[in-house]
């Protein structure tokens, strides 16, 4: 029997699932090897047992946490798909503010007050923090990035089909930048988060003339003190530095990781 795989989305833009559909060149080969049993973007069926669950998005509300625990309970392996599921992504910045304050900033004072007084609306603010999956359930593998990298998804899937997990070295983006033969971003007088960010993206942003903003998350031993000192030495204000770190890595900064 072919392995049953399923895709789920929590709080996210569904861009990772879109990136997955971009694997159209190998999709038919893939369907020879696996059965896709749940995939809201493509199917309406559900399945009581799943071999590999891919979950996109971060967890905000208790009802989402319960849904996640339910998926974990019926899945043999659980993979966090993309930056939201792995490290909370940009929405984790909202953890700095009260839920009602956030709601007011986006929808105005009327909705801010109603969400606190109308029981029908309570689920909308009944969360205290944006959380990545690993804070709630055991995660077997994390496919980082905003969005996830399709080659990495395929590599993982091949390994899982062979009965193993891929080894992911804790390399900085600089490793792949050198492999790509790029000029270092600092050489052109700009700053970059490549030294403290998980590799795996083939330095795609730098290869296209931009810098690394850290969407794949901070490395476990990221030398943040040295990086902060370097950003200061390059003339960035404390506020700008904080913004740069918090764009994608807010949750990791708050968790004191590294």
């Amino acid at each position, binding site marked *: 029997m072919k392995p049953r795989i399923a895709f789920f989305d929590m709080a996210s833009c569904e861009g990772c699932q879109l990136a997955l559909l971009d694997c159209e060149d190998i999709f038919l080969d893939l369907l020879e*090897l696996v059965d896709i049993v749940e995939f809201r973007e493509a199917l309406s069926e559900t399945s009581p047992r799943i071999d590999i669950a891919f979950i996109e998005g971060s967890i905000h509300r208790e009802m989402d946490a319960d849904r996640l625990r339910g998926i974990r309970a019926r899945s043999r392996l659980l993979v966090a798909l993309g930056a939201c599921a792995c490290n909370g992504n940009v929405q984790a910045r909202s953890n700095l503010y009260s839920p009602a304050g956030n709601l007011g900033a986006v929808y105005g004072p009327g909705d801010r007050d109603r969400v606190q007084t109308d029981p029908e609306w309570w689920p909308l603010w009944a969360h205290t923090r944006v959380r990545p999956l690993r804070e709630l359930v055991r995660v077997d593998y994390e496919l980082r990035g905003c969005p996830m990298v399709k080659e990495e998804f*395929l590599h993982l899937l*091949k390994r899982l089909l062979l009965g193993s997990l891929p080894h992911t070295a804790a390399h*900085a983006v600089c*490793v792949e930048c050198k492999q790509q033969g790029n000029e270092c971003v600092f050489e*052109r*007088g700009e700053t970059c988060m*490549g*030294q403290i960010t998980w590799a795996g993206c083939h330095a795609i942003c730098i290869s296209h003339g931009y810098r690394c903003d850290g969407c794949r998350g901070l490395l476990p031993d990221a030398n943040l003190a*040295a990086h902060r000192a370097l950003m200061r030495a390059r003339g960035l204000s404390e506020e700008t530095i904080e913004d740069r770190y918090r764009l994608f890595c807010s949750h990791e900064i708050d968790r004191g990781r590294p």
Partner: protein
Amino acid sequence: MDAFLASKRQFLDWLRHTAADTETFFPQPLGEASFQFARVRPDSPLRLEDWDSGTPREAFRASANPVPPGKLLSPPGETLFRFRRDPDGRLEFFPVLDDAPRIIAGIRPCDLHAIHLLDGIQSAGVPDPHYLSRRGHTTLIAHDCLQPCDEHCFCDAVGALRQRQGADLFLTPMEDGLLVEVLSEKGAALVEGAGFSPCGDREARLAWAEGQRARPFGRPLPASPEAIAGILAGSGASPVWREHSERCFSCGTCNLVCPTCYCFDVSDDIDLAAPAEGRRCRTWDGCMLPDFAQVAGGHDFRPGTAARQHHRVARKFQYLPRQMATGSHCVGCGRCGHQCTVDIDIYDIVKDLVERAGP
């Protein structure tokens, strides 16, 4: 062997002409302030100006070249062999060797020295057929440096400046063009029919060039490479390692841009359409990367950046020179110091060690 004279224009025209038949690489601008050994195309911007005196910023500098020319012999990722499991379960293996002819031109002595050292390493013990196949099919055109590239250079202090061995053609800048010396049969075959003028006064011209060479050449070190090896042997407990690695990111840049680093990691990749087939691949690795010395069970032989920094420097100045009976395996190109975003420079580390070791 023969020697010729050519004008710079004549040489570059000949190189473009040769590049039409054989894949040819020459240093070309990369981004805003860097260089890459890129394919020579009919419209490639090839420059020789820096071979004269002075070092204008736009001239090729080894330290500003993140991927040294020798890495063309060991690309960042390559297939070592393909494999297939037949229906009876037997595995078959198919070797993959790159035997495409290539020319690498515009090589400075430091990088030529690095290739010469790698030739020794890749031939010793279990020879590396992938490196040796590319190397055997590659022609090297190197040139002398009469001025250091920039403030990062210390090639003379580690004995790399006078390197000629390994080159097929060796060029020396002259007042009236270039002296083209043929150093191998491969070089002789390549330059045949180039139309360069025979040179009858090679020795006098080499003496003239020597007289033009900057003195001192690049940054000096306060001890010889041999003395440095001795100092390193007793330096394990030195505070230098911690001091020079507190700001290290473990990003591996110093390894990956080093012309004598050659470490790699190996992995298998299977074909999704035919899961019984696949290939074994290798990719660049480096001893400053955090999990380089980690083994099964999670033990790490070199935990922390200080231990890894010690290992990196000892590899260049102590372990490999003794194992291979050569001089320093640091060629003084200045890449690791220049490319490091927090300016950790192997030159500073070694100088610091020597000075603290006392007379």
